[in-house]
C-alpha cells in the first residue's frame, strides 16, 4: 500500500511534483499519479495545499512498495587521499548484508580527484562506484557533499546507505537524511537485515550505554545508519581490478557554498582518540599534571593516544580534546589503559566497549574495576614507568 492520491481533492496544480526528490509523481489527465520510485518520504504531503495526498500507516507499508530501491551503499570518507578505515570496514559488513538481500555493495565517492581512491576501493569486493567529481568537493563541506549525494541517491536509489560515525560522517548524514526525509540511526554498533521485509536492523547504545536499542526505519528508503569505527573487521584487500565507475554530472557551483574552510590544524599528537588502537588514559589518581608526560611516553611506545578523565580536564591538567566519556569522546580501542581513573559512570559510558581494559588504581573499590579485563590495585607511578622500561628493553 503506497502513497494515496485522493483524486476528488487533487486539482493537478503540480506543487507536489516539484517537491518530490525522486521524480515519483507525474500528471496524468490533470491528476497526480504515483510512480514506483516513491520513497514515502512525505515531502509532497507537506506541500499539498488541498490535503489530497495521504501517507499510509507504518503497518501497511509493504516491501514491494520499494521495489525500485536496490543495493547497499557505503559513503567513502576520504582523508589525505585515501579511504578512511571505517569506509573499508563498512564495505566488509555491507557486503554481508547485501548478500543476504541478493544484491551488491557499492560505494558513493564524492571528490575532485577520485581515481586513486577508486583504484584503492577496487581491491575490495564492491559492485560499482557511484561518483560525483567537482573542484567544490576537494575538501569535505556539508552543503556541497549533501547536494552531490542527493543527486546520486535520487538517480540510483539504494535501499541502504551506510556512513562511518566519524565527526565528518555524522555531520554529513544528519543533513542528508533530513533532506531525503528518511530515517537515520546514529552510531550503530551492530547491523543485520530482515530479509522478508528488506528491513535494516540497527542496534545502538542509548542512555550512555546503559541500554541497547534495535531500531528500524523500513517504511522509508533509503534506510540510513552511521556506524562506529572499529566495530566491524577490516576486510582483506585483493588486487586492483576494473570496477565500473558511474559518474554523475556535478551541478554544484562554488558561489552557492555557504562555508569556506580557511585552515586545517592537525592535533599535535600524531594519533587521534577516535582512531587510536591503544589509549592510555589518566585521572586524578596520577597525582599531578606533569605525570601525563609519563602516560604519553607509554602511549607513544604502544603507538597510541592519551586520554583523560573529566576531572583532569576540568582541573586544567590537560586539554579538552583528550576527554573520554559522556561529555568528551566515546572510544573503542583494542586496548584501554585507565591510570588513576576511578570510573564514574560518565567515564565508563565513553570507554567500556573497548576490547581489553587495564585498570590501575589505588582504591580497590573503584568502579573502574567492574569493567576492567585486568585490574591492579596500586600506584600508577609505581607501575607505568616499569612497563615503559620493559617495553624499551624488549
Amino acid at each position, binding site marked *: 500500500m503506497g502513497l494515496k492520491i485522493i483524486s476528488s481533492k487533487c486539482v493537478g496544480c503540480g506543487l507536489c511534483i516539484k517537491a518530490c526528490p525522486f521524480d515519483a509523481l507525474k500528471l496524468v489527465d490533470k491528476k497526480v499519479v504515483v510512480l514506483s520510485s516513491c520513497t514515502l518520504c*512525505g515531502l509532497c504531503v507537506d506541500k499539498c495545499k488541498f490535503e489530497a495526498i495521504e501517507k499510509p500507516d507504518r503497518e501497511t507499508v509493504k516491501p514491494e512498495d520499494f521495489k525500485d530501491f536496490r543495493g547497499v551503499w557505503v559513503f567513502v570518507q576520504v*582523508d589525505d587521499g585515501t579511504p578512511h578505515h571505517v569506509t573499508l570496514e563498512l564495505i566488509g559488513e555491507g557486503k554481508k548484508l547485501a548478500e543476504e538481500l541478493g544484491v551488491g555493495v557499492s560505494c558513493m565517492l564524492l571528490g575532485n580527484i577520485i581515481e586513486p581512491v577508486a583504484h584503492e576501493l577496487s581491491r575490495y569486493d564492491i559492485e560499482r562506484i557511484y561518483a560525483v567529481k567537482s573542484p567544490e568537493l576537494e575538501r569535505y563541506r*556539508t*552543503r556541497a557533499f549533501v547536494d552531490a549525494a542527493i543527486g546520486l541517491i535520487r538517480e540510483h536509489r539504494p535501499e541502504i546507505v551506510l556512513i562511518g560515525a566519524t*565527526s*565528518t560522517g*555524522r*555531520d554529513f548524514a*544528519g*543533513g542528508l*537524511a533530513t533532506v531525503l526525509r*528518511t*530515517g537515520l*540511526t*546514529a*552510531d550503530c554498533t551492530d547491523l543485520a537485515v530482515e530479509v522478508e521485509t528488506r528491513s535494516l536492523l540497527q542496534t545502538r547504545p542509548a542512555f*550512555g550505554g*546503559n*541500554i*541497547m*536499542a*534495535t*531500531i*528500524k*526505519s523500513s*517504511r522509508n528508503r533509503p534506510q540510513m545508519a552511521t556506524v562506529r569505527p572499529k566495530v566491524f573487521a577490516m576486510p582483506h584487500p585483493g588486487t586492483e581490478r576494473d570496477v565500473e565507475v558511474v559518474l554523475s554530472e556535478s551541478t554544484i557551483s562554488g558561489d552557492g557554498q*555557504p*562555508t*569556506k574552510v*580557511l*585552515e*586545517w*590544524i*592537525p*592535533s599535535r599528537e600524531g594519533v587521534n582518540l*577516535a*582512531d587510536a*588502537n591503544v589509549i592510555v588514559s589518566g585521572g586524578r589518581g596520577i597525582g599531578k599534571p606533569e605525570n601525563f608526560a609519563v602516560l604519553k611516553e607509554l602511549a607513544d611506545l*604502544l603507538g597510541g593516544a592519551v586520554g583523560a578523565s573529566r576531572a583532569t*580536564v576540568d582541573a586544567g591538567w590537560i586539554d579538552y580534546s583528550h*576527554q573520554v566519556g*559522556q561529555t568528551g569522546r*566515546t572510544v573503542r580501542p*583494542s586496548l584501554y*589503559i585507565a591510570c588513576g581513573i576511578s570510573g564514574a559512570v*560518565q567515564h565508563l*559510558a565513553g570507554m567500556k566497549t573497548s576490547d581489553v581494559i*587495564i585498570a590501575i588504581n589505588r582504591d580497590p573499590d573503584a568502579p573502574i*574495576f567492574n*569493567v*576492567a*579485563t*585486568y*585490574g*591492579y*590495585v*596500586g*600506584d600508577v607511578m*609505581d607501575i607505568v614507568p616499569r*612497563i615503559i622500561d620493559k617495553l624499551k628493553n624488549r
Partner: protein
Amino acid sequence: MNIVVCVKQVPDTADVRIDPKTNTLVREGVPSILNPFDEFAIEEGLRIREKVGGRVTVISMGPPQAGEVLRTALAMGADEVELLSDRAFAGSDTLATSYVLSRGIEKIGNVDLVITGKQAIDGDTAQVGPGIAARLGFSQLTYVSRVEEVDPVKGTMVVERLLDGGRERVEAKLPALLTVVKGINIPRQPSILRIKKARTAVIPTRSAQDIGADPDLTGQKGSPTWVETIFSPEQKTKGEMITGDADEAAGRLFDVIHQSISL
C-alpha cells in the same frame, strides 16, 4: 543579531536502567537535567549577544515539565524562552524533532544564528542540529570549539571546529547553525536574585497550531525510525585482578599488553 538556542531536558542517563522483568526503561526517580552540552550553547549565545548586540531566545521541545530547564536559561540571562509542547510531538525521532524546532525558529522569524549542544546525552545522536540547518537552509557548523568572529554587517562568522584528528577553521555565511562542544566557554553562574526571579517566571508554551506544525509530520507519525526492541548490554565477565609487587605486576601487565595488541 537574533539568536535562538535550542536546549533539551534529559534524564541523568547514569541512572537509567532496564527493568529485567518487564524489559522496559526505568525512568522513575531518575532526575531530569539540562543537557550538559546545551549549557555551553546558552552561554555562547549570551556571549555573542554581549559582543554584537541582539536578543537570545532559548527554546525547547518537550512535555510541560521540560520547561524547567528554560528557567536555567532565564537565570543565565536569556531574553525570552519558549516551550514547544503538544501531545502531537510525543515520540518524535530526530527528523520529527528537527521539524518541530525549525517550525518554532521560523515562527520567531528573522533568526541569524541558531546554537545547540553537539548532542543530547540521552540519545547521543547529534542529528537534530544538522536537521535544523538542512530544513532552514542555514550554514551548518557542527562541533564548534571557538567562535572567532561574528560580523553581522558582512553577514559572516569564523569558527573553529573540533574534529577527529584536528581543528578546522571555517568561515560561514549567516544565517548559520552551530552545535558546540564542551570547552568552548565556561558557563556563568547566575546570581541568586536571577535564579529566584526565574523560579517564578511564567514559561510561555507554544502548541503545534501556534507554530504551524503539521501534526502528521510530528510525533510517531512523522518519525521514520522506531525502536523495535531494547535490551541490556552484555555484562562483561568479572576481570582478573593482578596481584604481587609492582615489579611482578608490571611484568604481567607487559604480557597482557603484548597479547592484546600483538606488538
